[in-house]
């Protein structure tokens, strides 16, 4: 199927595009002010926002990446899924309601609430753009590769199509259209994954044990065909039921755990979703729905991955003699074809494309709001910008970001997508997350502390990544990595916390007194929402 034009996939995707563009046209008529554009007027219900969050979060990387990881390594894929999920309860307990009560359009509203606006917003905007750009590159490259394979389109065309469609959604429909694209995509993806998991389980009389046993058998057969003795082959086959080679050293395991868990709580496009609901109660309800949907989705992914071992891993059309996929990470896509033939393959392909579109739309909107709301309106115009002026800047930024995303998507065609996603999470966990937590919970936190610590965390995460094997050896071709681990967050996140703490303690500036004095009032508003009423109305 690779490279051949798949008309059923293109047809179904065309229906999705036509439908979502219709919604965008409808949303465009409702997008008049910056509140509409950034936050859908604050009128999204908790249930809808929960679905939209799930839609924003369940990227093609998690659907295709994790199911392929399970296909290859079995149990290890589940470790990833769990890490992606456990950030959500923490977001609910510590952040969701406070974000809603303190902020209006961007997480920088919250981070800078009691601090000097200019320095904190500059930091927040830069760190938002860094996270958004890395995540965008990952999504664009993923999109290009996926569409090339599924639809038989050229990589360049695929990237341009994603860029143009995403621009149309965000430019005209703002947050309203973005939210609906995410909701539709979430429903499609959940429906599609449910069907696949049920179809797999059906073949095993709904016994997961029977599914696992068969998967172990398949892996054992592949190992013995590869020349291993009976005992070794059985051990190799059985290894898919436990944690294996994927996390070799303890430091990397914990570091990845930190990045996944706390990175989620620092992703600007995710945090932004809490400004679309009317109040703290709806913010809370949206996290419950999101956690439920995402958890359910990861359990499905696990079944799909094991189903792929059995149904895809035995088909020589898709795997080579060693049992590795010819197509890289398309296990779920092949499984769709094995289950439902060409038509279902087309449907899943269209859903995968829709998935990427929804995620890039959310990312672009959050990047644009960082430029227009934080940099232009708050820093450059000192909060005096009119709604129309701010909107104009935001829309131009959308166009610039889209061009940038297309350009970078083409330039980084060969980059490892999972690595870029990991980097975005590490940056978010090392910059935005410590800044938000300490500004929300520590009275002594000051402007200088936040800016110094947040910057230290982001820069250290970047530098350690450059010095690690992924870049220092694989891209820059040095013989040995200077930083011996794969993931930086175990060092960069504590450094950020520590720097904020020390710099704040030593800060004796007049501004620091104002910062500390503001804490109690900030806390009242964060806890009760008093003063936040109608925050999204103007």
């Amino acid at each position, binding site marked *: 199927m690779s490279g051949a034009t798949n008309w059923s996939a293109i047809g179904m995707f065309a229906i999705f595009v036509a439908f979502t563009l219709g919604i965008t046209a409808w949303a465009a008529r409702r997008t008049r002010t910056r509140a509409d554009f950034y936050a859908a007027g604050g009128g999204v219900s908790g249930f809808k926002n929960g679905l939209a969050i799930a839609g924003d979060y369940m990227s093609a990387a998690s659907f295709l990446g994790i199911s392929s990881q399970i296909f290859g390594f079995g*149990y290890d894929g*589940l*470790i990833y*899924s*769990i*890490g992606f*999920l*456990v950030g*959500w*309860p*923490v977001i*609910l*307990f*510590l952040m969701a*309601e406070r974000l809603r009560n303190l902020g209006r359009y961007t997480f920088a*509203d919250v981070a800078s*609430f*009691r601090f000097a*606006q200019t320095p904190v917003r500059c930091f927040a905007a830069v760190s938002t753009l860094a996270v958004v750009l890395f995540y965008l590159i990952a999504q664009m490259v993923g999109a290009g590769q996926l569409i090339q394979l599924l639809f038989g389109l050229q990589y360049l065309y695929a990237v341009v199509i994603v860029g143009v469609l995403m621009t149309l959604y965000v430019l005209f429909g703002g947050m309203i259209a973005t939210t609906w694209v995410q909701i539709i995509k979430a429903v499609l993806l959940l429906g599609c994954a449910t069907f696949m998991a049920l179809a797999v389980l059906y073949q095993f009389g709904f016994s*997961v*044990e029977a599914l*696992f*046993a068969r998967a*172990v058998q398949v892996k054992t057969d592949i190992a013995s065909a590869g020349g291993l003795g009976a005992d070794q082959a059985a051990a190799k086959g*059985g*290894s898919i*039921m*436990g*944690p294996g080679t994927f*996390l070799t*050293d*303890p430091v990397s*395991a*914990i570091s990845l*755990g930190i990045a996944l*868990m706390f990175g989620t709580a620092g992703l600007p496009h995710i945090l932004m979703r809490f400004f679309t609901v009317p109040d703290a*109660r709806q913010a*809370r*309800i949206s*996290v*419950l729905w999101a*956690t*439920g949907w995402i*958890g359910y989705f*990861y*359990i499905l992914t*696990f079944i799909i991955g094991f189903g792929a071992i059995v149904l895809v891993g035995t088909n020589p059309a898709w795997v080579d003699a060693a049992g590795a996929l010819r197509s890289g990470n398309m296990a779920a896509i092949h499984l769709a074809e094995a289950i439902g033939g060409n038509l279902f393959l087309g449907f899943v392909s269209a859903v995968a494309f829709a998935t990427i579109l929804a995620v890039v739309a959310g990312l672009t909107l959050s990047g644009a709001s960082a430029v227009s709301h934080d940099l232009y309106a*708050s820093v450059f115009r*000192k*909060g005096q910008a009119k709604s129309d002026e701010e909107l104009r800047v935001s829309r131009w930024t959308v166009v610039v970001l889209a061009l940038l995303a297309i350009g970078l998507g083409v330039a980084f065609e060969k980059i490892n997508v999972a690595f870029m996603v990991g980097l975005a999470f590490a940056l978010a966990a090392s910059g935005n997350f410590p800044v938000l937590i300490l500004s929300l919970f520590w009275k002594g936190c000051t402007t200088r502390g936040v800016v110094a610590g947040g910057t230290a965390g982001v820069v250290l995460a970047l530098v350690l990544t450059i010095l690690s094997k992924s870049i220092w050896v694989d891209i820059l071709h040095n013989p040995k990595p200077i930083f011996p681990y794969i993931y930086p967050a175990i060092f960069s996140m504590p450094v950020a916390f520590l720097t904020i703490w020390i710099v704040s303690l030593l800060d004796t500036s007049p501004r620091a007194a104002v910062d500390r004095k503001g804490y*109690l*009032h*900030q806390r*009242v*508003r964060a*806890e*009760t*929402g*008093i*003063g936040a009423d109608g925050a999204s109305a103007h």
Partner: protein
Amino acid sequence: MAEPEADDSGRYDEVLADPRYQRLVKRRGRFTWLLTAIMLAAYYGYILLIAFDKEVLARPIGGGVTSLGIPIGVGIILLAIVLTGLYVRRANKEYDPLVRALRDGAPQ
């Protein structure tokens, strides 16, 4: 936007002095940090197990191939959902009425 305290400053001082506010903050704080601690302990316990003793998770249970890691892994996913559910239920029932009373109680 830049200085939102300006308008509501007096009202915030009233709420700060209100014993109901102190009670709300204390109760909710205790509950949320407890839930956070449970989630962190479960997740990092799991990660440490992976880091230092992979064998435990790979051990088969019930005579088949299904390993102990499967119920533990799925259990952590379910725990995350249950904990969020517990918090939302208590917040809706207990904290929201308190917050509402505070908001209505404080004069304009």
